[in-house]
């Protein structure tokens, strides 16, 4: 189960990019340069890197609200531009959704990014349609949806898992269990704090893994994607992880819990430990960190330098084929 050192280095780089992206973004948000609301994925980098590693450009993923990093990785890996994810968050014309979507609606089908839906969990049923189309056409692709633990409260969870099973659809459910929905602990929201317990009744493979151990997460996604691509139907993965962002600004979780996740179980620290055990020096890793940070800073600058969308865009694309009158 040991991963090639090159692969692990790339995964580290990806995780570092996600973190740099999120921290840079958060800084700009606090400065008022990024409008709207923001959900930050710091702490969940391993899950995102693991998914990015195995999803192909012709697969589809529906990212959740903390997946800016995954979105950027998909751009970088599949011939897109990570900076266009950043520009979307700034509402610029150069953003992947032309600035019309923002954090919660950044999409680029060319790299497999089918966009978030800010009605949390609604895409749990949308993903079925993508998967069904592929299955009907005999295309061995994977349709993935990334959902938080809180999102599992939605009724669509049931409709989706049930239909994925009866039609044996190629769906990967990637459930990011970070312990909370905004302020509400998972145990207060769900019959089981382990989401897999609720998924198992649907009779397809379900697995809970440490979402902060990149080697574990990588292997789990690899296995799940192989299972799905081979035509064996859906797969449910629960990643146990934790988000550094509290309730928007404030921290509300027990100090010991915060310490554990930030100090002892930070996915980047864990990966660094694994890599140094295999001979990579701290300096090498620092260089990676510096490189991706520089990339992200250039993306931020690109975003700031980009124009706002043209006025005509306000009324464009309401309907295909019919115009809507401007004011």
């Amino acid at each position, binding site marked *: 189960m040991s991963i090639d050192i090159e692969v692990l280095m790339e995964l580290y780089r990806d995780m570092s990019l996600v973190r740099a992206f999120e921290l840079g973004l958060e800084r700009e948000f606090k400065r008022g340069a990024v409008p709207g609301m923001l959900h930050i994925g710091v702490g969940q980098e391993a899950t995102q890197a693991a998914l990015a590693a195995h999803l192909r450009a012709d697969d*589809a993923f529906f990212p959740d609200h903390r997946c800016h990093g995954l979105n950027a990785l998909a751009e970088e890996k599949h011939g897109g531009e990570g900076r266009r994810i950043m520009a979307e968050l700034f509402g610029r014309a150069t953003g*992947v*959704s*032309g*600035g*019309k*979507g923002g954090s919660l*609606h950044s*999409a*680029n*089908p060319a790299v497999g990014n*089918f*966009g978030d*839906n800010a*009605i949390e969990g*609604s*895409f*749990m*049923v*949308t*993903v*079925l*349609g*993508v*998967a*069904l*189309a*592929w299955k*009907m056409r005999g295309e061995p692709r994977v*349709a993935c949806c990334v959902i938080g633990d809180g999102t599992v409260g939605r*009724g*669509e969870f049931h*409709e*989706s898992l*049930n*239909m994925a099973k*009866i039609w044996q659809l190629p769906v990967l459910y990637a459930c990011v269990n970070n312990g909370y929905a905004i302020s509400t602990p998972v145990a207060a929201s769900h019959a089981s704090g382990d989401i897999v317990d609720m998924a198992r009744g649907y009779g397809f493979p379900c697995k809970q893994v440490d979402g902060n151990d990149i080697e574990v997460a990588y292997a789990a996604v690899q296995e799940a994607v192989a299972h799905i691509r081979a035509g064996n139907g859906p797969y449910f993965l629960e990643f146990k992880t934790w988000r550094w962002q509290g309730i928007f600004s404030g921290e509300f979780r027990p100090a010991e819990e915060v310490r554990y996740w930030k100090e002892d179980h930070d996915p980047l620290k864990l990966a660094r430990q694994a890599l140094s055990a295999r001979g990579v020096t701290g300096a090498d890793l620092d260089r990676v960190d510096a490189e991706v940070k520089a990339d992200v800073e250039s993306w931020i600058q690109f975003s700031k330098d980009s124009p706002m969308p043209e006025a005509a*865009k306000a009324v*464009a*694309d*309401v*309907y*295909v*084929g*019919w115009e*809507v009158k401007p004011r």
Partner: protein
Amino acid sequence: MTTAEAVRVRTYVQALNEALDLAMTRDPSVFLLGEDIGRMGGDFGVTRGLFDKFGAERVRDTPLSEAAIVGICVGAAMVGMRPVAEIMFADFLGECYDQLVNNAAKMHYMFDGQFKAPLVVRTAAGGGFGGGPHHSQSVEGWFMNVPGLVVVAPATPADAKGLLAASIENDNPVLFLEHKGLYRVKGDVPEGYYTTPLCRAAVRREGRDVTIVTAMKLVHDALAAAEVLAQEGIEAEVIDLRTVRPYDAETLVASVRKTGRAVVATEAPKMGGLAAELSATLSEECFGYLKAPVVRVSGLDTPIPFSVPLEKLILPGKDDILAGVRQTMQ
């Protein structure tokens, strides 16, 4: 209409069935899904025979999962399919409102044109058969304030066929309302594949004195009322909207500017629905031409009761249209 051929008499149900059959034959990306639409052929028989002809892959029975049914349409449409869902009764659209309004209708816009949602959600709307409060509603009003959605509502078998074909071809999400009171109605239906353009009203009867704007089952009541009025020397123009959102304001406005009088007839409750939109636009656009206020003839502002005599009281019909016209003629 395109490539129409020989004309035969068919029911509205048969006409819809023909449209599905022909659309599926010519375009492999068209498929159907819904509750009991397979072997059983749907609650009203619209999909009858299609399971045998096209198989279980393209005529899919689903669980009672209305949100998923529409969600699947959206997802499949995102990757180039043309799904046609059946939601057994329009009243059940509350269960998939989010998918229609927040997902299908906004998909093209919010992702900057990168995705389209060419799906059709067919459903049985309307009352008059003792179906009670959850099987009788006219729901277009739920969707009138939703940009990005198309709402189609045929009144005749020929339109049922042509508009359904056009809806399937169209690249926008279409909510396709079939009135239960029309399913058994017969009419001339051209053979072969054709489409009837969306967003274009039909003038069903010309007249100089008053314009009756309506849709679906009430088109027939309006025509019957017009016959009665003609005997009194009142010539009513009857316009069938066919698409209720976005609707053909041009044709309506031109007619009302001509006649100077307008009656808007809808089965749904009066307040806040299609009738309000039509009355507003006609009043605004025909100001100065109107000889009398626009009159809305609508369902009463109540849920729909089960008991037949009560249901009759709350739903509008020919006599109410007559009364409405007479009111505008005073």
